[in-house]
């Protein structure tokens, strides 16, 4: 069998292509994110998939050239010679400037479009005020007569605008299943638009170091059907009027989880 010139190179390219495809499929199949519980989660998770598709081939390329070089061009024992005096290759250098530039520009534009979509104003928005303090969250529903609650209860499929403030230091309001987060800044009101899209119970966590209790600053958020939300809000308002204090943390009808 005659030795074909460049054959090892063809083998490297073939193996790399196989590795790139297998690698990309593998990372796409992995379950990276928590469950998708907001309309934002879908776009963000898809965007991440696109980033994976762009990234794996690049990593495989770098590994392939490095491994191939180390094997093919390894010095034989006692070889004190030098390599080929290659100083550069203008065409190659132009290629590896323009291709990455095009890739990052495309990804930036895609990211921008997704961002605008996530932050677009929606009709029928429920406003919830979130107040962060060391080390708990307090929620107020201005649309429900100023109802105050320790637990966040949200109706499914209705856009929410969180208006986030703090008593003391910078915290960060985050529900991983919703994906979106915002810092709380003393002196400012920061805003977050989320449309919960899945029933269930999730955690609000604090995602900015705020002191000793930072890791314990976790509270529940429940996404419930619209009817259940309405009855919870109505009952809670009644209780707040009679008791004159904050609502209990559990609604009257625990119902579905």
């Amino acid at each position, binding site marked *: 069998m005659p030795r074909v010139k460049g054959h090892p190179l063809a083998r490297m390219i073939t193996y790399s292509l196989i590795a790139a495809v297998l690698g990309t499929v593998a990372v796409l199949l992995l379950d990276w*994110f928590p469950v998708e519980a907001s309309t934002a989660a879908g776009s963000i998770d898809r965007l991440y998939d696109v980033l994976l598709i762009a990234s794996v081939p690049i990593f495989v390329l770098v590994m392939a050239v490095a491994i191939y070089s180390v094997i093919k061009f390894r010095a034989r024992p006692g070889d004190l010679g030098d390599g080929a005096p290659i100083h*550069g290759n203008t065409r190659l250098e132009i290629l590896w400037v323009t291709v990455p530039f095009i890739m990052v520009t495309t990804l930036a534009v895609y990211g921008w479009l997704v961002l605008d979509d996530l932050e677009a104003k929606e009709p029928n928005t429920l406003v919830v005020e979130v107040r962060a303090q060391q080390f708990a969250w307090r929620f107020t529903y201005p649309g429900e007569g100023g109802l105050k609650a320790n637990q966040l209860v949200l109706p499914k499929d209705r856009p929410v605008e969180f208006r986030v403030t703090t008593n003391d230091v910078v915290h960060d309001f985050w529900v991983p299943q919703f994906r979106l987060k915002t810092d709380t800044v*003393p002196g400012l009101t920061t805003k977050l638009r989320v449309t919960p899209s899945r029933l269930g119970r999730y955690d609000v966590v604090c995602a900015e170091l705020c*002191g000793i209790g930072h890791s314990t600053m976790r509270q529940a958020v429940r996404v419930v059907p619209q009817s259940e939300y309405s009855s919870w809000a109505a009952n809670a308002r009644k209780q707040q009027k009679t008791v004159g204090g904050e609502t209990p943390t559990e609604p009257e009808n625990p119902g579905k989880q």
Partner: protein
Amino acid sequence: MTLAARLAAPGWWRALISQPIGFAVALGLTVGVRALYGYEPVFDWEAIVTVAMIALPLAFLVGIGCFDYWFRWASGARTVPEDHSGHGARSWKDYFKVNTDHKVIGIQYICTTFFFFIAGGLMAMVMRAELAQPGTQFVEPNTYNGLFSVHASLMIFLFIIPVFAGIANYVIPLMIGAPDMAFPRLNALSFWMLPTAGILMLASFFAEGGAFATGWTAYAPLSTETPLGQTFFNVAVQFAGASSIATALNFLVTIITMRAPGMTFWRMPLLVWANFTTSLLVVIATPFIAGSQFFVLFDRALGTHFFDPAGSGDVLMYQHVFWFYSHPAVYIMMLPGFGIVSEVISANARKPVFGYRMMAFSLMAIVVLGFTVWAHHMFVSGMFSWLRVPMMITTMLIAVPTGIKIFSWLATLWRGVIHLTTPMLFALGFITMFTLGGISGIMLAVIPVVIHVSDTYFVVAHIHYVLFGGSVFTIFAGIYHWFPKMTGRMYDEGLGKVHFWLSFVFFNLTFGPMHFVGIDGMPRRVADYAESFATLNVIISVSSFVFGLSFLVFLYNIITSWRNGPKAAANPWRAHTLEWQVSSPPPIFNFDEVPTVVGGPYEYGVPGAVHGVFKEKKGAAVPAGAGGAPPPSE
């Protein structure tokens, strides 16, 4: 020496008595001013400690002798003829004094920074022990917060930034054919400011309320309200920052004015380019972190309201000022490493660095672009929303010059004659790990994705891939590569390889899984976490312990080789750059004759090419393709 003579001469005795004197000054100043203003109580311990933590390090620097020459000159006294006794090391004791020799200072830097690397690394081990299981097992939350804050601060300000300065301090004057740095006394002062910063950070553990616990980022208003430990950070950063700025000035002047005849900018080795561009970053950016920490210090100690909304302060302003430095800081922590990789790869692949001019231009592009991306650390901070997209664009653009470098190093390997020495292994490990870190960095630039992963373990994964798999791997490469030059002995190649493989494997097992727990919802800077993250965390913790142990192999190798290793030749790597054309270790004043540079620094494979020649010495510099001692066994 009589006691009086000991106390009058610069050195540790005088430094010792400087401490009570400095304390007395601090005490007098604080009590006096408080009495004049009528503040109650006049004796306020916190106020006294705050002033003392500035006065005592300054007193130490005066006592040990950093300012003697300048004070004497400023006083108008007659100059003392220079006998160069304070220059160069003739015994181990010289390494513990104020010494103006850049080679001594370089080794002082490297040994001191590795001490703080060990301290910071041990803190990480305690953190990982705590994080092995959900719940609290070993440390209280406040202690835990102190641990990660001091860990990061030591690693950044007392290890990565200064160890690169130390390696460059040793190598660059030799590489450009100079007898020393432009300002040797300033160089000595720069070094001695460093242990003062590190001791202050460690001392914060003894303050009431514990170590500073607001992260190395120290966001206001948390940092303006926490106990005294925070002030130690505010002051320590000033000393570390001053050290860094003075060194950078020194490098800039040295590189611009002291290159050997014939060494144009385009004939400089890339390590020199890398440190030149890094020094530009340092002098422009570092004053901003100094400023941010002064603002916090003033809010804490002087009643200002920089970050108090009730006093017309602006909380977000802290973050803008802080990150305006701290983003360039990450390039300060990487660019010298890029220089080291260019040196190691060209020598061990026996090839010119591919695309040398673009490599230099890409360094400059990173410097410029590096100043335009700071707010990518603030995407979810509540800052002006219109700033986010421009910052995303500039951040993604930085991938282009960085990519040029990675591809150029790969092309340098191509058709080379590759020797897999320990420095080369670390350089190759760097290329692959830094690529991964860069990929997670691109992901972190895309706003919708980063809104989810901001402040999670995904960020912790990214930073350790670029700072450990990136910077620290290049530091190891540099230490192994120049070890023979610095010590005159060769390290053990077998142990070097063991160190590399253990580090590489367990580094990935430690930090790889962090990408997953982060995306899955685990925030960073938490001592406790939800049950669902338990499995991956215990894997990470156990891997991190083995990873930590792997460092012992390095320590053992370096220490035993320094003491008993085989004597090293002048040029064990058969490299062309000027530092290899003098003995190992070099003569005290580096060159018996100033070399003349006649060609590029990496002309391997070009018949008859030389980089520098000694006109009077017989047998010039090592031409391309020549023999010499074979490199250590691979």
